[in-house]
């Protein structure tokens, strides 16, 4: 339908009777109706209008449309968050802009030090998260093997509220065990931790996670700029849930914070929502 190569370009689209326009100088009528036609064009059009009541009607209708369009107000600025775009924009071309799942490689490229550090720290803490989740008696067995694979492979570990609290604390980097694992899993506390860490929120995130992230983002009121650092399925209070971790910088400034939200796989109801400032 579009593009310069379409040989049917000048035909009316489906649904519009072609004969309504077949013989009429539409190109000239546009400029005539809005007053931009040259004197020569005006003379041509008026010669046609003298014999064509159809075009006279169309010109009158078109002029009414021009007036109506001219009356439309200009809408106010949407205030795009340019800083969030520069952070997200370093990611993959294929990633949906509203579901930002940063990869390790992308993270390396990222320029925003604060957020990069925040994401790196929290992603490293994801290692702890897997262990915490797997350690709750899920069918996957021991933490060392279950944690090394995608969470689906380990089933959906049964987690308690306390486990999710610990996950939140771990993602925020504010508990001692998280720091311990962080330093064990990486060479020092850099923003470039544990590349081989079995992150459940890695870019190979399970199909379906994007939708879960998207509905969870909306259901828990996360800003569009919130970066997803964690996504895993679990069983919580007898329901299959998605556990999604976000890092967001408050628009008012201040330290980035972590949010961990669990939503039901069926219906995306929020069953757990904890927020914690990201530790140094």
């Amino acid at each position: 339908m579009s593009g310069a190569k379409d040989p049917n370009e000048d035909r009316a689209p489906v649904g519009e009777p072609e004969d309504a326009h077949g013989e009429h100088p539409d190109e000239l009528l546009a400029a005539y109706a809005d007053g931009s036609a040259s004197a020569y064009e005006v003379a041509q059009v008026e010669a046609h209008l003298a014999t064509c009541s159809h075009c006279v009607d169309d010109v009158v209708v078109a002029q009414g449309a021009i007036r109506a369009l001219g009356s439309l107000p200009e809408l106010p600025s949407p205030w795009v968050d340019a800083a969030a775009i520069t952070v997200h924009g370093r990611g993959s071309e294929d990633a949906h802009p509203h579901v930002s799942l940063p990869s390790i490689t992308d993270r390396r490229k990222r320029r925003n030090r604060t957020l990069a550090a925040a994401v790196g720290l929290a992603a490293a803490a994801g290692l702890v998260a897997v262990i915490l989740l797997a350690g709750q008696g899920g069918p996957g067995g021991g933490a060392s093997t279950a944690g090394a694979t995608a969470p689906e492979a380990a089933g959906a570990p049964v987690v308690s509220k306390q486990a999710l609290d610990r996950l939140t604390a771990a993602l925020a980097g504010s508990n001692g065990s998280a720091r311990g694992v962080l330093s064990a899993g990486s060479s020092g506390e850099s923003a470039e931790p544990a590349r081989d860490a079995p992150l459940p929120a890695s870019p190979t995130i399970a199909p379906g996670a994007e939708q879960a992230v998207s509905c969870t983002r909306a259901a828990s009121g996360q800003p569009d700029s919130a970066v997803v650092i964690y996504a895993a399925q679990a069983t919580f209070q007898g329901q299959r849930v998605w556990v999604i971790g976000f890092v967001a910088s408050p628009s008012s400034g201040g330290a980035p914070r972590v949010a961990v939200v669990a939503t039901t796989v069926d219906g995306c109801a929020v069953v757990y929502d904890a927020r914690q400032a990201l530790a140094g």
Partner: protein
Amino acid sequence: VSLPSDRADAELVSKAAGGDEAAFAALVRRHERRVYNLAYRMLGREEDARDATQDVFLSCYRRLPSFRGEAAFTTWLHRVTVNAAYDILRRRRGTVLGQDELPEPPPEPDHADRASASVDVQRALMRVPVEYRSAVVLHDIQGMAYEDVAVILNIPIGTVKSRIHRGRVALGRALGSGSEPPVDPATDPGTPERIRGEHSDTRSPSKTELP
């Protein structure tokens, strides 16, 4: 409608492509209102227009390094915006919108009668076939010259003028005809394909196309 100057844009684009985030933020501030207005008039829903605007600037940020300045930045940005709107319309296709949910009133303080008149115009605009609508919005609302619309939509200028005339006529008749459904799904020609020439949207952009 005043267009931001191309020269200042070129300077900001060059800085932003080199990683200057303040320059990118300045570009966003200069153009976001036009992008948002174009998207809103194409889509008729504030939420969709915001999504489209965000998509546009994200694409823009990613493609800045490949923007070679052969065309005005505004022209390129308008093309990216039209494509973002087409993408959303395509996703929306199949979900037939109820008359009462289309469109939202524009978020602005206004006299009630004027606001209601502009809702009527927007509603009628949504009944204009998409290919005509993009040409009409670019020319009659965004104030782009016929020549610029031709470049943005990558079609001959004669086609632009025909589409604008037919689009205006369709709009005028829709305004006069009361409350029909937005577009009859049985005769809706559908959303056009994306306009080629956004650089990474096509694997082999021709030399005549915009970056």
